[in-house]
């Protein structure tokens, strides 16, 4: 392939996403089966009985802002990935007709 590097990058990214999902699922299953995890979460305040709306808001806003922080880390990376003109310049833009033609060719063969 003419842009080996780019392809490699893509494969790596897909791999990374898959690993993240797998680890996430494992963690999810693990946490929701384990008694200790619940105790831990109560201990650190993740599961806390909320008696007042004020406490509840303090808690949910804290989580929201933390998520926003991570979003700010992810978004620029995603933007650069999409908007990478070096990579895009090396690949011809393929229209639907072209893609279909290729597929049709394949089927014919």
């Amino acid at each position, binding site marked *: 392939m003419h842009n080996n590097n780019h392809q490699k990058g893509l494969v790596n990214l897909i791999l990374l996403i898959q690993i993240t999902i797998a680890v996430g699922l494992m963690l999810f299953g693990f946490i*929701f089966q384990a008694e200790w995890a619940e105790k831990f979460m109560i201990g650190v305040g993740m*599961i806390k009985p909320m*008696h007042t*709306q004020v*406490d509840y808001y303090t808690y949910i806003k804290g989580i929201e*802002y933390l998520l926003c922080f991570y979003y700010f880390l992810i978004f620029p990376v995603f933007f650069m990935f999409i908007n990478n003109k070096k990579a895009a310049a090396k690949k011809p833009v393929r229209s639907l007709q072209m893609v279909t033609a290729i597929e049709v060719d394949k089927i014919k063969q």
Partner: protein
Amino acid sequence: MKNKIINRRSFIKGGFGGTAATVLSLKSARAAGDFDHYPDSMGVIVDLNRCVGCRSCEAACNKEQGLPEPEKPFNDYSVFDAHESGGHGGAGRRTDETRYTVVNKYELPEIDHPLYRKSQCNHCLEPACLTSCFVNAYTKTPEGAVIYNADVCVGCRTCMIACPFYIPTFKYSSAFSPRIMKCIFCYDTRLKEGRPPACVEACPQEALTFGKRVDLLEIGRKRIRQNPGGYVNHIYGENEAGGTAWMYLSPVDFGEAGFDVHVPHEPVINFVRDFLSIVPMVLVIWPALFAGFHLLANRKEQNKHHHIDGGEE
């Protein structure tokens, strides 16, 4: 408290089956009225009919909290009559850095004796001071007190802005160790151990009745019912600012006895919730929106140069 943990436990045991139920219950918990508040929260109901203006509560508070010496003895009743010099707007006495509670006198034409009203922190169920504090210096304890931590306070005085009852006061006199001064329900010295605050204990007339907030509401309603001519049919603090731990009974309209009757019945946090929900939206939507605008607006130039602007691009 128990209930909720058990809910979670059954959710955990039930795995995904329980998820929907829990999510639903959490969702409904977002409505303002659905928070049960601390069930054993204590409170005080102040009966204006009983208060004789003896200022015993002021004296007891002063000693219990180690506040500075007053300008006049606590058995000097001339303080009721003289509008304080230098006071803003001549609005009568208010709590300040030297006193957590004050009693004011109201001469009203419709009753033959003067009416006295004690004021102090009302210890809201959804405290405005706590809502507005950006360093979490306030805590609502399960016992019902709203306490303050001077170690983290920055002195921004937003709590004073937010409090609908004008209660937190600032130690303006100090440059190096200023702090908020406010009634804490004698939390450290008494309430924590299940004892009533000093003012309640000092009150000879039992104008202050200490007890569980739920019981106090019952007592208040009973007094109104048994003496309908003696009270207006309203317990101030039952719903004001979302409900307060300190409540009042009065023989006259509360407005005449110096209460702010315009205090909204919703907790103060309800007024900022709209903005608070917009914040994460802006934080998440704006990056893509404006990056998109940029790409749309500069398409020509980018095609021309094929260069990489770097940074986000």
